Every structure is written in structure tokens, then in C-alpha cells.
């Protein structure tokens, strides 16, 4: 073995050292992806396509584009390129270990705390992030939850060393709409108790909203003489003024209708419905209201014992058919990596493959107002995309290259490192006398 090989081996060992907490870093520089089948989402499929990535952007894309001399060329013959997938609702970055409260940062004390900003608490070094992105999910909404107005969610790219580096250009206040549904398997409340709690929550919400409207009037009337410090009301001002959307988490059919009515009554300019598990029951009404929906997860049970077994699978397709704008989410943290499979199951149950792909790319990008940067393969957009060897919604497909804002991200996570270390463990079996 020559000295060079030894050196290379020593270098590689650095990456697979047991106990190594982090994965190898990304690299940056102009790249040409040559000969790929490009699934642009917004402009069809381009065969034998060349895509030039430079300065974090897609510089050029097309079958007539040729690679400049100064770029690294990656041969993508037989491979496919897709824009990075976007999950419209997760707790990624805000949680590490489910049962350990000290690692959970998505659920602040208080029922009305919209001033709690997810971006503040996103942990760029979470072990969950590389696990997620190596499956092609590049961008997620990190959302607080728990209370009624539980905080302000943030769209993040799954690469960066500070929350600001990860920030993908969208924030929205999360409202969990007062629910008349059961909250979980252990919610043994009587129906009357549930209705009563919901009515009480509704009253509280209306009070808060009225205050926020009055604060807005006061704020603009007083000019430079700012009113007293009311952090929760200040946090709601962009929503009242229509510069930031309100993300309304709502799931039961009756609750969805109540939410639509409430939005109309309060004349809230920008609204996104989130969850919407029973959207299929009232899909026409949602379409009529023209409010976009982020629904999921898809791979889950129906809400009611008498509902068809596959309602959750079919829900996105049924809503889309009724004319609703539908994006998908996993509503998870640990397995946000399964977003493509949620999309695939929705595709097979009525959404169709093309719409399913749109629901995890361009549609969420449009809903979040970042379609100028994300959600499709177009000149001038962020170089946030991946190269794979087949249909990315199929589990058998493998991702070959992944770029986030032009950074070439190694396809390594703690889970792949454990595979490398333990497939053929050394030392192997040792027997003692």
C-alpha cells in the first residue's frame, strides 16, 4: 500500500470514527449536472438535460445547455433530477427525543404565545436533520404546537450552521382552532364536555383577536408613541395587517366549517389551513373559500370508526378533485424523511402522481410565498434539488446527489454511519472460555 492510499484511508476514517457526532460537511462550487432527465414540475420533463448550478442558484437548465469549462461536471445519464421536497408541517429542529422534555422546544407554556418564534429554537445540529435530507426532503416548516396560538412557525432549509443560515424566507403564526374532536386515545371526555371546552376556547380566541385588532388601530393612531408592550398582540400584528399568513390547524369537518366562517367574519387576509384530516367531507366549502390546505400525514388512520379504511390516504385526492389547493406534510419530526412515501400513497389513492409531486414542491412553495426561489427547476431559482436513480416516491429509489442552495451535501447521516460501522462489525463475535 503506498503512502497516498494510506493517507486517503486515514482521511476517510475521520468520517466513520465511532462516536463521531456530526456528518461530513458540504462543498460549494459551480456544478453541471449533465444528461439527466429533469422533472421541472412547472415546465414538464426535459430529457438529456444539463443543469448549471452556480452561486447557489440554477444558472441554466435545458437540453441545449452545455457545461462551461470552469464547472465540475457530474454525469447524470440515466438519472433523474427533482426540486427538493418541501414538508408543509413538521417539528423538525424543535425536538430531539420524544420522551425527554428537555429536548422538546415546540410547546411553550401558555395558551396564547404567538410571540414564540420557532426560528429561535431550531437546532441546526439536530441528528434528525441529516436523516431527513438524505431522502430528498430539503425544506420544512418547523412549527410550534400545543396551545391555541402556540407560536410562529418558520420555513427552514435542512442545511446551515445557524437558524438564520437555514431560514428559507417564510414565517406564519400558528392557530390551533378550538376543536370539538377528541384529542387522543386517552381523551375520555363526554361529548358535552368537549363542546363546552371548545366554546370556552372560541370565546378566548375571539377576545384575543378583538384585542389584536384594537392594538393595531391604537398602534397606527399613536404613530411614534408606541402603546404598552403586549408581546402576544405585537406578534399578531403582521397577521392583522395581512403581511403574514395565519396557519390554522383544524381537522374535524365541523371545525373546518367553523374555521372558514371565523376567517370570513374576522376578514383575515391571508390564511392557510393545516391538518384538515376531514377536509374530504367539506371539500367543496374549502374550495369555495379559496383557502389553500396543507394536509397530512397521509399514512394514518381514518378519524371515525365508521369511515372507510383508506380515507386518510384518499383525503388529499378528494380535496384536490373538489378544487382545493393541496400541499402535503408529515406532521412529524423523526420520520419527516417519509414525506415522499406519504405523497406516493396519496398519488395511488386518487391524487395522481403529478399532483402528488406538486403537493411537495411547487404548491407548498407558492403557499409559503417562496415560489420565486423554491419548488421547481427553473433558471434563477435556488439550487435546491436532488439527483436520483428512479421515481423518488418509490422506496426502492436511491438518491445520488443532493444540493441545498448550491451546497453539495454528502448523503451521510448518523443512520448511514451506523450502517457502515455495523454491517460487518469489528471485532465480530468473540467467544470466551
Amino acid at each position, binding site marked *: 500500500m503506498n503512502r497516498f492510499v494510506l493517507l486517503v484511508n486515514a482521511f476517510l476514517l475521520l468520517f466513520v470514527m465511532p462516536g463521531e457526532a456530526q456528518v461530513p460537511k458540504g462543498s460549494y462550487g459551480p456544478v453541471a449536472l449533465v444528461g439527466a432527465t429533469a422533472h421541472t414540475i412547472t415546465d414538464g420533463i426535459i430529457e438529456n438535460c444539463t443543469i448549471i448550478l452556480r452561486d447557489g442558484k440554477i444558472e441554466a437548465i435545458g437540453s441545449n445547455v452545455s457545461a462551461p469549462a470552469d464547472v465540475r461536471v457530474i454525469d447524470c445519464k440515466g438519472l433523474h433530477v427533482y426540486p427538493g421536497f418541501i414538508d408543509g408541517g413538521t417539528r423538525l429542529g424543535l425536538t430531539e*427525543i420524544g420522551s425527554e422534555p428537555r429536548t422538546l422546544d415546540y410547546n411553550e407554556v401558555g395558551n396564547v404565545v404567538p410571540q414564540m418564534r420557532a426560528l429561535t429554537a431550531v437546532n441546526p445540529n439536530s441528528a434528525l436533520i441529516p436523516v431527513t435530507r438524505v431522502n430528498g426532503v430539503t425544506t420544512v416548516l418547523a412549527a410550534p404546537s400545543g396551545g391555541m396560538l402556540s407560536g410562529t412557525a418558520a420555513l427552514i432549509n435542512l442545511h446551515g450552521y445557524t437558524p438564520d443560515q437555514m431560514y428559507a424566507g417564510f414565517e406564519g403564526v400558528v392557530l390551533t382552532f378550538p376543536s370539538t374532536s377528541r384529542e*387522543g386515545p386517552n381523551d375520555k371526555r363526554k361529548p358535552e364536555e368537549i363542546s363546552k371546552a371548545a366554546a370556552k376556547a372560541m370565546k378566548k380566541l375571539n377576545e384575543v383577536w378583538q384585542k389584536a385588532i384594537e392594538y393595531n388601530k391604537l398602534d397606527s393612531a399613536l404613530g411614534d408613541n408606541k402603546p404598552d408592550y403586549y408581546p402576544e398582540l405585537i406578534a399578531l400584528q403582521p397577521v392583522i395587517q395581512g403581511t403574514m399568513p395565519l396557519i390554522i390547524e383544524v381537522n374535524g369537518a365541523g371545525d373546518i366549517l367553523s374555521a372558514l366562517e371565523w376567517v370570513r367574519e374576522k376578514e383575515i387576509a391571508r390564511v392557510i389551513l393545516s391538518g384538515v384530516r376531514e377536509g374530504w367531507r367539506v371539500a367543496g366549502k374549502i374550495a369555495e373559500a379559496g383557502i389553500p390546505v396543507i394536509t397530512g400525514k397521509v399514512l394514518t388512520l381514518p378519524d371515525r370508526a365508521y369511515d372507510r379504511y383508506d380515507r386518510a390516504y384518499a383525503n388529499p385526492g378528494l380535496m384536490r378533485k373538489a378544487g382545493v389547493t393541496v400541499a402535503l406534510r408529515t406532521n412529524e419530526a423523526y420520520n419527516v424523511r417519509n414525506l415522499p412515501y406519504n405523497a406516493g400513497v396519496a398519488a395511488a389513492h386518487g391524487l395522481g402522481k403529478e399532483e402528488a409531486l406538486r403537493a411537495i414542491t411547487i404548491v407548498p412553495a407558492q403557499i409559503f410565498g417562496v415560489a420565486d426561489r423554491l419548488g421547481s427547476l427553473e433558471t434563477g431559482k435556488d439550487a435546491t434539488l436532488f439527483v436520483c436513480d428512479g421515481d423518488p416516491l418509490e422506496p426502492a429509489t436511491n438518491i445520488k446527489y443532493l444540493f441545498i442552495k448550491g451546497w453539495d451535501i454528502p448523503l451521510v447521516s*448518523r443512520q448511514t454511519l451506523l450502517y457502515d460501522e455495523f454491517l460487518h462489525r469489528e471485532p465480530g463475535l468473540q467467544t470466551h472460555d
Partner: protein
Amino acid sequence: MKVLRWQIVIALLVTFPMAATAQPDVGDVLIRNGTLLTVTNGTLENTDLLIRKGKITAIGKNLTAPEGCRVIDATGLFVMPGIIDAHSHIALEAINEMSSPLTPEVRMRDALNPLDISIYRALAGGVTTIQTLHGSANAIGGQSVVMKLRYGTLNPTELIFEGAPRGIKFALGENPTRVHGAGHNMVPRTRMGVEFVIRSALTEAREYQKKWDEYNEQKMKRGFRGAPPEYDDRLETLAEILRGNIIVHCHSYRADEIVMIMKVCRDFGIKKLVLQHANEGFKVAPEIAAFGAMASVFSDAWAYKFEVYYSTAYNAAILTRNGVLTSINSDDPGVIRHLYHEASKTLKYGGLSRDEALALITINPAKQLGIDNRVGSLEVGKDGDVAIFRGHPLSIYTVPVMTIVDGIVRFDREKDPDDMRIYVDPEERFDQSGFEVPEGYHDCLGTATETFHQLFESH
């Protein structure tokens, strides 16, 4: 009055033995021209499969349908053995008897609920056989039931997989130490305590077994006048484990506790060991293979608690490549409906072949439950348990269209109505929706923090 009483006695005498030996319904069906994924004999294109009286009697081309036999045209469809889930908690009225870290005397067959809609929903995911287990609150929990998803029967006994070996739940790590150590301030509070609790119980059982063996030997001798030892259901169950008559299904996550339970089993001569979950099984795969234990794992669940933080979705592949017989289970009424999808993830995570991936949810769990002579593959002589899919079952676009148990169609996507409840709860409001099961919620104990709080509140 007296006459009436006699009538009751006669009625009981007539009906009771019938109920005790209830024979499940069986049927005849010819599945024509499908792509058969046999699991043990590769893929057979354009092939027929005949089921008569609940058993597969022929596999081949151009089979003729016996008179009156239902014929299903499977042209363009995929036909595979009914899926088997080695770890579930559906169809149970209760899951955890938490009053003691040792409850081997508890039997899940006493808590079976044939009305559970989860049974039908599992059928709608191609599942035909499951093991439904006691929870993981106790170091030694209750005895499990292997059952066939004969949804439609009102008789719990008819669900039971006749002749399946007995199984019992053991549990290591965070769950028993949380429930008993943290919750009840008693041993075990640590993994040291878990080992001690199991060892001392098995030691007591060994003494008990010895007393009975001695008695059984002595009583045959002429002039023996001694009394039998006192019968103890708990110790008798443990003694049955020592005799090799009960398979140990041990809920375990971390590498060290997996090694521990194998040492304990070795010391007590216990050979039938299936490691349930075994999220860190991949770290001690050579040791598991050397012991001859098997593993039933999640496809990719992790990080919902600390003992699963250093997991990898490559677990099933690493175990398989190291020679450990492995299955993928659900432990969840939602996931049980797409075990075929869970298995397909091993194509990506570790590059298993399609046959290997299918084995994870068919023949391998059958072996772990000791029922592979009856189910787990499409072979002549085996039970007529079949799942039919539109699209390859390992494709994300697949849709299960029909599930057959003992030759009887129990799920038919085209014909079944939306509402498949057998029992309608009169208290249930028709206009109220339910809930989403929180991420990482496993029926074993409820691992989401919220559920933990509620768990302890109830104590």
C-alpha cells in the same frame, strides 16, 4: 321449574363443547392468472392458485374450478401470502396489567375483542395473521395470542390460531423501569434491576418445577403417600417457559440489554427467544445470530425516546446480512395496514432483494411464531391465507384489493361498504371526529410524553 332447570343443563351440555371446539369457517376459492409471489419459491407469472376447504390444494397453470367454487380473476394482479404481524396490540380490551413487574399468569386471550374495527383495517392492508401481545410495562408480562383475522365472528375463540405455540411478553429497559421504578418506587428502576427481577423469577420457577418433577416421579412409585406441591399459575407459566413450551418475545432496544437477556436465557436453558423491536439489535447482530435468537423490528421508527435515539433504518438489513432471522412488525393499528410498505423500505436501507423484503412480513414472522408449517408462503398444503394487490406490494403505488383467510374473502375493496363495524357504540356521536395518533405512539406503552403523563395520572 325443575323441568326448566334440566332444560338449561341439557342446553349447556349440548352447546358448551361446541363452543369450546369451534371450527372456523373455511372456503373454496380459485384465484386465476395472477402473478404469484410465493416467498419460498420465487415469482410465478400467470399462475392459478386453488384453495379448497381453507387449504391451498394446487398451484399451477389452467387449473379448473370445482363446482360451486368462487373464481377470482387476478389477471394483472399480484398474489402473495397473507401478511403476518408478529407484534400487535389490536383486538384487545386491555393491554398492560401493571400491578406487578411480573404477570406471566395474565392471558391476552381473556381480553380478546372480536369487534375491534382495527381487525378489518388490518385485513384491508393484506394482513391475515397477527400476534397480539401484552404491553411492555412489566419485566415479565402476560401471555400473547396468535390469531387469524376472521373478522365477522362474534366469538373471540374463533379468532385464535388453532395449535399455535404459546408466547409470552418480556420487557427490558425504559418501560418497565419507568412504570415500576419511577412510577411505583419499586425494583426495577434500572436495567440492573430488570435482570434481577427476571433471574429471580426464573430461579423460583426452576425450584417449583423441580418440586413438581420430583412429585410426578414419586407418585408413580408404589406406596407413595405424599401430597402434590401447591399449584401456582405464575410459577407454572414460567416453568412452561423453562420446559421450552412457551416462546419468549422480549421487548428490548439497547445492545447491552439484548446481550443480557440472551445470557439469562442461556443460563436457564431457554432457547426460544424472539427479540421484539431490537432497535440496537444491529449492534450485536453476531451475538444474536450465535445464540439463535430472532428479531422482529420496526422499519424506521426512532428517536421517540432515548433508548431508540441511536437507531438506524438499516437495522433489518444488517440483522439479515448477519444471519439473524428478522421480521418487520407494526406495534400499531395504523402501521399494521401498510406492512408491505414498511418492508419495501429495506430495498433502500441496505438493499435487500424483493424476496428478502417480502419474507420480513410473511415466512419470517411465521417462523418466529412457530406457525411456518401453516402460513407464511404460497405452498400446497398451507392455509388458504392470501393477499391480492393491484401493483407490486413493494411499490408505493400498490393498493390491496382483496384479503382471504382460510379460503374466505374477508376484505374486498370493490364490494365492501365504507362502514364495516360489527358493533355500533350507542354512546358514540356520529358527527364527532376522532384523533390522530401522535408520532411515536406505540401501543406497547404509549411512548409520547403526553401519554406518559396520563399513564402516571391513572396511578
